[in-house]
């Protein structure tokens, strides 16, 4: 009885699938490649999207009757590195976080911080007087204080709550 010691029978019996013979594997590889290109164009790398590229700082917005205050945590930056502008109730914060010269080209064991340029648009909760805005940078926190416009202050109408 001829006993076939080697398992080279038909191709489909092989446990290893070869690309040419398996259309699904080829499709999967093609999709992976497309998604990689997609990620590249947004400035993210395959690692963890947290390295050099486009990132966006997070903001907190608070207000009282007269002012709107926007604060953003931007450690490592100071007033020279950011640009703040207001237009039509939208506040734009833009800038670039550069690597320090001494840090460039070193062997990194871990990189969790963000670098690169950023832009953030914040919709303000009410109309503001653009000329009177004030921005200060302290300890890596950018605080922008915008006085509300007269019209916006008038609109606040207190509704009296009566007891029945």
């Amino acid at each position, binding site marked *: 009885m001829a006993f076939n010691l080697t398992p080279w029978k038909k191709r489909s019996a092989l446990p290893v699938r070869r690309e040419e013979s398996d259309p699904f594997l080829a499709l999967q590889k093609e999709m992976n490649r497309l998604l990689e290109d997609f990620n590249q164009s947004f400035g993210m790398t395959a690692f963890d999207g947290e390295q050099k590229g486009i990132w966006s700082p997070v903001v*907190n917005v608070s207000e009282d009757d007269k002012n709107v205050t926007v604060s953003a*945590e931007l450690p490592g930056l100071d007033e020279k590195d950011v640009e703040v502008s207001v237009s039509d109730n939208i506040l734009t914060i833009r800038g670039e976080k550069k690597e320090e010269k001494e*840090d460039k080209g070193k062997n990194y*064991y871990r990189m969790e911080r963000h670098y690169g340029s950023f832009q953030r648009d914040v919709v303000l909760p009410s109309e503001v007087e653009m000329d009177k805005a004030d921005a200060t940078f302290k300890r*890596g926190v950018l605080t922008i204080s915008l006085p509300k416009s007269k019209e916006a202050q008038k609109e606040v109408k207190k509704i009296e709550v009566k007891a029945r």
Partner: protein
Amino acid sequence: MATETRAMDKREAQQPQGVERTMTRKVFMPRADIYESGESLVILLDMPGVDEKSVDVTLEKDILTITGTVQPHIPEGHTLAYSEYEIGDYRRAFTISDVDRENITAVVKNGVLRLTLPKSAQARTRKIEVKTQ
């Protein structure tokens, strides 16, 4: 759909088993970059809101612990209309070895702490000269 990455999805610091905080402030782990530069190890930590007076670096046996306290930065009388990040203290610890403990330096600038840990004498790479026979 891929969106721009958001900075600072803050991660809460882990407490050792069975240990609780006495205060209700949140504690976060600051993001760190660690790299090697010639004869020393450099650690950069993002801790917005701290300055040199509110950060504490201690080295005990092999554990380097960094803690920072932050004052709330909402002006008085304001109510929070929209919040994307929380404000809290920072804490992170690393195990280190082969470090020259006497010469560790720490500098805070714009809310970033830079720690320089020079390697100890034994850990430095020595170049071995290759001679021909």
